[in-house]
């Protein structure tokens, strides 16, 4: 069985499970709606202030959803005693990481689309004009978030205080991704061309490359034991 | 420009307290570990 096939099987399995139960996606999507209200109430009725904070709120919403959703990446395996099954898979274990990463990217992208649509509608912000470059920024940021999130999720699955440790470990690593995506989004929403945020895109792409590489290289060490 | 010696002493003072504190912390842990095998030997 090839490497790609193994990764695909993991990805497909998670997709099928989610499509059948829908429990995680429904909860996360509802969480996005709640965030909408939360941000509105926290920042008050001042339209200007909300619009100015929008890039940050968008990414904040995604990170919060990520903390909830990504941390559970390996919960199904743990709860159903499938962890051993993962460990005993023949061949390169990083295929599992890749499959899980793909699944998480799809999940985060779904959350993003919902957030962007909700924000556009309820906060009355034009997110359609810069849609293409915005999508690029969000995609790069998503990979960065999911790459480290998947790795740490596997790690914290068996550790005490998992729900607390996962955010504590993930957030410092995500600082560059957060800064880059928010800065780039802000520039794009102000109408600046993509070329102006090229350095942020390069940073994101570089960071993504580093995070995924480390994930691929170290996943087998996390999977042991 | 005011002399601001208070800030200098505050910074160095905190550093001294922290570093000395850590040194004593290490010393205490080392002593506790040294006492344990002796206790086990006595019991065994």
């Amino acid at each position: 069985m090839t490497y790609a096939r193994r990764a695909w099987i993991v990805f497909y399995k998670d997709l099928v499970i989610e499509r059948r139960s829908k429990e995680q996606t429904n909860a996360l999507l509802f969480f996005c709606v709640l965030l909408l209200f939360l941000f509105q109430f926290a920042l008050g009725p001042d339209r200007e202030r909300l619009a100015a904070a929008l890039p940050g709120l968008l990414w904040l919403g995604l990170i919060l959803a990520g903390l909830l959703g990504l941390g559970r990446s390996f919960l199904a395996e743990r709860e159903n005693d499938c962890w051993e099954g993962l460990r005993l898979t023949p061949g390169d274990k990083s295929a599992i990481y890749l499959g899980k990463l793909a699944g998480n990217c799809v999940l985060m992208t779904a959350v993003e689309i919902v957030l962007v649509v909700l924000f556009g509608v309820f906060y009355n912000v034009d997110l359609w004009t810069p849609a293409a470059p915005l999508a690029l920024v969000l995609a790069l940021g998503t990979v960065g978030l999911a790459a480290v999130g998947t790795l740490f999720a596997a790690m914290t699955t068996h550790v005490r205080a998992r729900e607390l440790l996962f955010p504590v470990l993930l957030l410092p690593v995500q600082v560059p991704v957060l800064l880059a995506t928010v800065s780039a989004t802000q520039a794009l929403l102000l109408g600046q061309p993509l070329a102006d945020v090229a350095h942020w895109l390069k940073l994101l792409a570089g960071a993504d490359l580093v995070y995924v590489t480390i994930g691929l290289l170290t996943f087998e060490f996390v999977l042991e034991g | 420009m005011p002399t601001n010696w208070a800030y200098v002493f505050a910074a160095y003072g905190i550093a001294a307290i922290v570093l000395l504190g850590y040194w004593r912390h290490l010393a205490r842990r080392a002593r506790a570990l040294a006492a344990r095998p002796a206790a086990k030997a006595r019991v065994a």
Partner: protein
Amino acid sequence: MTRVLGWLAALGLLAGLAAGFGYAPREAVQGNVQRIMYLHVPSVLTAYLAFGLVLLGSIAYLATRRPGWDRLAGSAGEIGVLFTGLTIVSGSIWGKPTWGTWWTWDARLTSTAVLFLAYVGYLLLRSLIDDPDARGRYAAVVGILGAVNIPIVHFSVKWWRALHQPSTILGPEPSPIDPAIGLALFINWVAFTLLFAYFLSRRMEIARLEEQT
């Protein structure tokens, strides 16, 4: 060996104090507050040394599985957090009279704070795992990621600050053109490095004894 290091460190620190307060001149612009630099800069350099060792120990442990490497990583991490905290506090105290504020989100302070948070998380992870092998492996992964992330954080924060403050403000770092200042700084840096080596030696010994019992 450890005791020798200890005495050398003590001597070095005394020499550093003498150099910082006696030998080095009063700085022209900031006055005597600038002397905090002899504490602040060696602290951050020592912290970087520590985290470099965390990276080394982490990679070596994953490659060899020898517990000694994990002891190095864990000990260096603990001491690194200590010195990073010291860096932030001394920087903050230095900033109050020079910048007028205890804290500012300037690039260097912010990066150092993120560094602090990352490695506190590292220590937290270590404290939550009892099995030495799992602890070593997981900590190594976090340690490697944390170290590799340092330059990424540095650039992202720097560019982020450039958006909000195009001109660099008077940072607490006078140009060390004056050789006396440079020498005093060097002596203090050597002293701090010796102190670090002493702490590391003791901490690793404690870790080794703990694993035996």
